[in-house]
């Protein structure tokens, strides 16, 4: 086990050094979008509104924290790995080292996890200042961590499967961007037709939003959504491990 954890550290070391070199730039780019959503939707469109019995600002902050975990974790991992694999080919060097495929998957996802945790924590901390309805709980921390792993694994998968830099952009436009707006981040899914709800429940960000909201607002916790989020994380991890093990990268 210690050997496995060391391998994860060895794999992630370079990415974390990269983050250290570019900390301010990476952090500001991660939180700029979520801050704009907070200003536009929380204070602009949603001023004075309530949603599901709480002020709208308290409703959307867990949603924005969820989408921050998606955007920061996915984009950090996917963009860097995509460049390392297709442009610099430095990912080949890693593949030639005596490392387990599982350690490579975890290690390559760590940059996204760290960046996602820091960025979503900043957004949530702002929320704690803005509204007394929110509270940080152990369950919230667990869910945001699982959420960051889920979307970071998704980023690894997207980068491993991408045939070009353009196909990464296409993936972001067709999968990530719609999730950002539709998965219960800015509004309750109960407002939507049931057929649309069914589709949205098949996306991981929906479960991330629902669980983070329940954990931070003290609502009944939707354990089934947590299980669904974990299932997505495990599925993405297994896909990545298979791609690396069978050298389909």
């Amino acid at each position, binding site marked *: 086990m210690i050997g496995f954890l060391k391998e994860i550290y060895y794999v992630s070391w370079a990415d974390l050094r990269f983050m250290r070199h570019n900390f301010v730039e990476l952090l500001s780019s991660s939180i700029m979008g979520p801050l704009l959503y907070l200003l536009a939707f929380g204070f602009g469109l949603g001023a004075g509104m309530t949603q599901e019995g709480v002020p709208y600002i308290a409703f959307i902050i867990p949603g924005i924290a969820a989408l921050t975990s998606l955007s920061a974790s996915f984009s950090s991992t996917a963009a860097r790995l995509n460049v390392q694999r297709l442009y610099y080919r430095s990912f080949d060097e890693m593949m030639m080292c005596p490392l387990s495929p599982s350690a490579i998957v975890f290690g390559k996802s760590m940059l996204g996890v760290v960046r996602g945790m820091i960025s979503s924590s900043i957004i949530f901390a702002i929320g704690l200042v803005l509204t007394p309805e929110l509270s940080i709980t152990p369950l919230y921390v667990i869910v945001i961590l699982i959420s960051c792993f889920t979307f970071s694994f998704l980023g690894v998968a997207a980068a491993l499967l991408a045939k070009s830099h353009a196909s990464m952009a296409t993936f972001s436009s067709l999968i990530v961007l719609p999730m950002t707006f539709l998965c219960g981040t800015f509004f309750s899914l109960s407002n939507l037709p049931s057929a649309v709800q069914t589709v949205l429940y098949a996306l991981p960000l929906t479960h991330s939003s629902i669980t983070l909201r329940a954990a931070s607002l003290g609502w009944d916790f939707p354990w089934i959504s947590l299980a669904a989020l974990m299932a997505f994380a495990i599925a993405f991890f297994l896909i990545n491990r298979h791609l690396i093990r069978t*050298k389909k990268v």
Partner: protein
Amino acid sequence: MSEIIIVEGVVKKYGDRAAVNGLDLRVNEGEIFGFLGPNGAGKTTTVRVISTLTDYSEGSVSVGGHDILKDPKEAKKLMGVIQQHISLDTDLTVRENMMHHAMMHKIPKSERMRRINELADYVGLDEYMDKMINTLSGGWKKRAATVCSLLHKPKVLFLDEPTVGLDVQARRLLWDIIRKLNDNGTTIFLTSHYIEEVEALCDRVGIINDGKLIALGTPSELCNKLGSTAVEYYGADNKTEYKYFTSREEANEFASSLGDVKTVIIRNTNLEDCFVELTGKSVSGP
């Protein structure tokens, strides 16, 4: 002499096209093995297959007695690769790249810096260690990549077109490094476009064409098979022709029998002659 690389019947296909087509190859421990072939012949694919980077559909490969599919971790410990493209992390410094390689090869913490400093000193990288990779010229990047590939003391070093894009000094330094490593027991597997590089360095040479090994032997064995003496003449039809003979006397006799030719050169047959005759192509192009 034991065989450190054994490739048997390997097939690697991209769609319907076989990049490597039933390749059989054995490389002896301690030798410098040159791997020649025209563009697209399967050289780089072969290196990628042996070094575990690319899967294959048929056959088997073992390195140091370890099957690369059944025991990849042990096989990887024995191999170092200097790729055709410089595959370093350009967002990190030279030292950080080396440290990362040392970590990924699980070199003990107490030894990492010592090995990095030793090798960096040897290739003259000392003053560049804290510079970002993307600020270095191609030659210095190649030196950094060389150090990275040697940190774990591989038993086999693969060099895929290692001197492409290097100036003469950098190329000669790399040749010296290759020779020194080989003197210390490292087996070298070298692919190159430069015939003179292969002739200067390699104990044995394999020539691959259309994914198949078509010739194997020492440079002199390959030349003798073709004929040790070459006659090169520029004829009336404005085309250079080549003929090969087993003795210089036969070559002289043929040369004197030539009628209306502008230039005649009698010389020893070289590896480039073998390459062109066997593949029907020049080294650098189709």
